[in-house]
């Protein structure tokens, strides 16, 4: 084994599968199955851009791809909201403050925030799609003067699944953000807001200039087709629609094949795409 031979150090230095260490510094329950986690990387900032993801490792359990939910930062900390849905995410949910995890990344493309400067932003987010979108939303709010109108649409299945409820209250109260949300279903008397799928919010938007606005769409696979139809009805061109696509990211380095969509490795060439660049791919939307 090379751990004993001369290349042991080399493989240690050059392995693309070797995680770094990060420490859990805060956590907070968001819904029955989603929790917020803040990690601190040892000795450096993660250096990510909005919309990127990282591979989180729990030694003995495995590795899982997780969206980064905080905006770019010089700090060594970064934030993730993780749904307890498999063995790795369950182990992450069981971590205590001070516990360490492994991390590889950041990986993938990012929301092209520089190209969007001077334009209106329309975020269309469904369910945990708000998690990666939040990194771009917070970035835009931190650099508020760089962007014109900011509209955020958020839809989830039921009121109990709403994420970032404190921040949503803030966004609702800001007069430089137009925040509208909806739930697919709710119990009688449980919710006095909009009811209906996310696309029902699009016709409520007034004065959106499709030539001066970029739509950023992040949600479950089923959502894209219908939201894009809705945006086309509003005369959005495909060049003004940006999507972040879910796939099974395993290695994060464009080798293992799990995330492949036609000829594209989503972990490297995505997950953020201009819709215009991928609409011809049969396996995309």
């Amino acid at each position, binding site marked *: *084994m*090379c*751990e004993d*031979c001369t*290349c*042991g150090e*080399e*493989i*240690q230095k*050059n*392995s*693309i*599968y*070797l*995680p770094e*260490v*990060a420490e859990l510094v805060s956590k907070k329950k968001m819904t029955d199955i989603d929790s917020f986690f803040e990690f601190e990387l040892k000795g450096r900032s993660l250096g990510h851009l909005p919309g990127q993801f990282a591979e989180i*490792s*729990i*030694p*003995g*359990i*495995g*590795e*899982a791809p997780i969206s980064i939910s905080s905006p770019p930062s010089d700090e060594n900390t970064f934030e993730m909201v993780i*749904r307890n*849905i*498999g063995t790795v*995410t369950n182990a992450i949910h069981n971590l205590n403050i001070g516990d*360490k*995890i*492994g991390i590889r990344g950041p990986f993938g493309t990012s929301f092209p925030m520089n190209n969007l400067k001077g334009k209106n932003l329309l975020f269309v987010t469904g369910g945990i799609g708000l998690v990666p979108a939040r990194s771009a939303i917070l970035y835009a709010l931190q650099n508020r003067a760089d962007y014109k109108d900011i509209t955020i649409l958020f839809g989830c299945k039921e009121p109990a699944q709403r994420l970032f409820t404190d921040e949503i209250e803030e966004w609702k109260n800001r007069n430089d953000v137009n925040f509208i949300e909806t739930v697919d279903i709710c119990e009688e008397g449980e919710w006095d807001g909009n009811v209906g799928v996310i696309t029902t919010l699009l016709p409520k938007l007034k004065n959106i200039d499709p030539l001066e606005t970029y739509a950023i769409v992040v949600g*479950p*696979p089923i959502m894209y087709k219908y939201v894009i139809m809705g945006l086309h009805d509003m005369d959005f061109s495909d060049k003004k629609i940006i999507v972040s696509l*879910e*796939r*099974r990211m*395993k*290695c994060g*380095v*464009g*080798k*293992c*094949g*799990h995330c*492949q*969509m*036609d*000829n594209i490795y989503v972990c*490297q060439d995505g997950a953020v795409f201009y819709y215009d660049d991928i609409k011809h791919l*049969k*396996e995309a939307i």
Partner: protein
Amino acid sequence: MEILKISENDFLSFIDKKIDEKNEKMIGVVKKGSHFIFDELESSENLALNYDVTMLPPKKYFQPPKELLLKYKPGDAESYRAVNSCDPMAIVGIHYYDLAAIYMMDRAFSEGERDEHYMRKRENSILIGLYPTKYFKYRFAKSVVRDQAYKVADLMMVKMNGDYVVEVVSEKGKDFIKDGNFVESGYSLQDLDEAKNSVKDDQKIPIPVELIPDYLGKNHAHPVWETFGEKCFSCGSCVLVCPTCYCFDVRDEVELDLADGKRIRVWDGCMLEDFATCADGHNFRKEKGQRFRHRIYRKGKHLPEKYHYFGCVGCGRCQYVCSADIAGPVKVFKYMEENKQGGKNV
């Protein structure tokens, strides 16, 4: 390029000498039951170079079916350590189509993010190629392979008049045989052509390979995908034996004493049902026809568009192992040519 020759007996003595010297692990084709496999050689007596095809390609030495990537103490994220196993080895008797496949693998693992685990194994290996001496009824390599073998082989051998004629392709190859009884052959490259082509392929892809990426692009809705997909058992045998399939899964394993853990890479395949299933249960290739199309697209469109070589090397192993008798690209493209009507997009 130097063209040397060595008698068969001298070659076997040379192999024995190499085994004794133990400078590198000597691997070659050996007989197992009624089949052939690549295995470590204990003696040249085991070497069975007159073979049709091996059960698995030599890929298993560079991307082992189960490969250790990391070691750690369970629960201790600070204990991750990358490990690799890349003892020097020489592999004797690799047919040219399997060499073409190694060329494809080398590109996949070296381009973009360089995979040091694979590359170090490759760099510590010597590849000794051999033109087939025995017919295999499913082979169609001649219709798909071009010059790739010479991009990775260190030596290329062809059997002629009882001798092995050896093309010295690389410096590494030259160094490897410097102590053997290899002599000037007096042959020119053209002299070897007949021997190189002495074993014919019965099978042939019915479309010129350079046209296939475009052909597939136009046939996304062809009935072949649904028709062949329906017959597929999703067993994954075709991708398991494929020399150009390198998709993998990564898993954690903990020893029974719970004191040590390993992160391993294992072979995986796009024909298996859950290959593209996400954590929320959404399967991006739920239908068998979609998976069948993806495999053929990968070989016939995606890999060629990226690497400018056809992604299948025509070894015929997939057709040989397929219980449903659908996996072979020759079969697929013949069916497509015979059934040109439009179908449903699965």
